[in-house]
């Protein structure tokens, strides 16, 4: 046994810089790195066409619909939920707005119709989840089946062609030389970013996803908030439906297929935690772009679908490993 001893009590621990921001930035930098690497690969394999304005515009327009859906999905996932019904809602909104009855009222009604149908479906999801206390996975799975069925019924499973020329002219056109779809994507992202990062609504979304009970005890109306978050996701689906209809000049119950998987994948690749409470819209945007660029490179290089699939799996893993900084930092806790 050793003697009692007393040492110098005045030593101090060094102060350190704000952690969170740096980590997020690091993660996003990693992701951006992946995107840049992909672009370099694209350019190396097809120097003639990859970085042309036309190809970039094509990629961005391709990314538009899934990008908008992913914005909504980011909100849902940050709030601790999941939405499997986005694809079906896109289909339903698109079909509804292009039925003959709706088209005869002109483009404004068509747009409103898509937005309202999307919002409505989203709110039904939200109410089932928050007030009906049904787990998000199940509630939105039910909506997935129902909305799809309804879209099939409404359309009689036929592709509804847009005959309303005003609609097509506007949404398929350009503004200041940039396609309307790209403007829309940018606008939705910008509004989403501000909403998530600069408003009380966004702050509450993080709180609800991080610890719903704590949020409730802090005086947040968790149920109403949850319902609204799914409403936002639905609204995004409505906007995406506009985009898909504009691009394909038609509404069909097959639109939006696999959007749920694609959107969730983009959100998660983008660094948003599936368990909620943490996430970033910029990450989501980069995630969407990564998938779009990968698809474009495959097509540009005329690869077989089977190789594409294998490569896609490998790229997903590589992308995540490249941005694993966070996992390492949290390693001590999360291992």
């Amino acid at each position: 046994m050793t003697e009692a001893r007393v040492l110098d009590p005045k030593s101090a621990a060094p102060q350190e810089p704000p952690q969170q921001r740096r980590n997020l930035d690091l993660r996003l930098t990693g992701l951006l790195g992946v995107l840049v690497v992909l672009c370099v690969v694209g350019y190396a394999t097809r120097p003639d066409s990859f970085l042309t304005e036309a190809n970039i515009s094509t990629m961005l327009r391709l990314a538009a619909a899934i990008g908008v859906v992913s914005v909504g999905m980011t909100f849902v996932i940050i709030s601790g939920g999941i939405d499997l019904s986005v694809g079906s809602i896109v289909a339903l909104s698109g079909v509804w707005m292009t039925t003959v009855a709706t088209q005869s009222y002109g483009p404004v009604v068509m747009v409103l119709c898509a937005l309202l149908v999307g919002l409505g479906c989203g709110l039904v999801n939200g109410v089932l989840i928050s007030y009906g206390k049904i787990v998000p996975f199940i509630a939105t799975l039910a909506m997935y089946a129902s909305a799809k069925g309804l879209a099939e019924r409404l359309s009689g499973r036929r592709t509804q062609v847009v005959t309303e020329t005003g609609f097509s002219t506007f949404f398929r056109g350009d503004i200041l030389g940039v396609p309307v779809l790209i403007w829309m994507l940018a606008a939705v992202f910008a509004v989403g970013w501000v909403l998530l990062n600069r408003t009380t609504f966004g702050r509450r979304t993080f709180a609800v996803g991080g610890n719903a009970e704590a949020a409730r005890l802090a005086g947040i109306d968790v149920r109403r908030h949850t319902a609204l978050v799914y409403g936002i996701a639905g609204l995004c689906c409505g906007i995406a439906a506009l985009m898909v209809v504009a691009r394909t000049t038609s509404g069909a119950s097959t639109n939006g297929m696999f959007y749920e998987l694609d959107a969730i994948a983009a959100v998660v690749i983008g660094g948003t935690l599936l368990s909620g409470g943490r996430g970033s819209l910029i990450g989501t945007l980069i995630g969407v772009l990564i998938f779009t660029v990968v698809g474009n490179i495959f097509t540009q290089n005329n690869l077989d679908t089977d190789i594409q699939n294998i490569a896609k799996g490998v790229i997903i893993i590589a992308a995540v490993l490249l941005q694993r900084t966070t996992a390492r930092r949290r390693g001590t806790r999360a291992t």
Partner: protein
Amino acid sequence: TSNESANTAPNAVAGGSGQNTQPGKQVTIGFSAPAADHGWMAAMTKNAKAQADEFSDVTFKATEGTNDVNQQIGQVETLINDKVDVLVVLPFDGKALTEVGRQAMDAGIPVINLDRVFDTPLAYRLWIGGDNYRMGVNAGEYIASQLKAKNITNPIIGEVAGIDSLPLTQERSKGFSDALAKAGFAVGPRVSASFTSESGEQQTANLLQSAPKLDALWNHDDDQGIGVMAAIDSAGRKEFVMVGGAGSRNMMDLIKADSGVVKATVLYSPSMASSAIALARLLGQTKGIGDMAEHDIPASITTYSAVVTKENVDQYLDVGFDS
């Protein structure tokens, strides 16, 4: 367009004349097909049902369309358990449903194998379907002749295929490239969509980017064709000849109008479903086909993939389906 023709009656109906239209013994026909998730498949199901409705002596039982072969086997089994008189099966995958087809035949239920073919004739009494290889060949030959006529020597020919993992897509592509090879041409950029207009649009948008100049383009499927057309339209491209596939009403209208890139479509008509039901009824009533010398219905019928162009389009408008 589909909107205009939405209220018109089913366009393709078989068995309109002759003795066979007289009501006979009551026949229950079981029908199983993949999910009616795009226009052509929906038209198959719809035609089958419409054809059945034409006959007062037919009870029609359709099961939920599914793209899971395991599920479809279960459904056919259910129909067998139900003791239907005749089965009409459009398998999602012919090989995978062969055994259950045999099972039905063994149970004494004649099976009409619609379109995607079973592995062995033991599994069906009659096969009726299209000729995917010939469809590709016809598309290839049409394109080759067009290009030859324009004296293009080194053409860039694009292809928008359907779901790559289906045998029918592979056959179509093979026929297409064989026919082109005969003319000394080869397929250039090729993408595969999934029979939906959205996927058609996405894939074509990418394809058009990778090929700044095209001479011809074959699209396997007119359902995805709506999206393909939209992509071509947004890219503002019109320097090439496009040929469709399957033969939707929409595409035929475009061919008739002759205002864009679409010059032809190669038929793969869902009217075969109507024929299948008509033949199923006859099988159930043990009748033959009136105009044939044979007493019995033949064992296999292949529909012809006609090339529909501006010249002959009027003649085919009635089999054009709503995509």
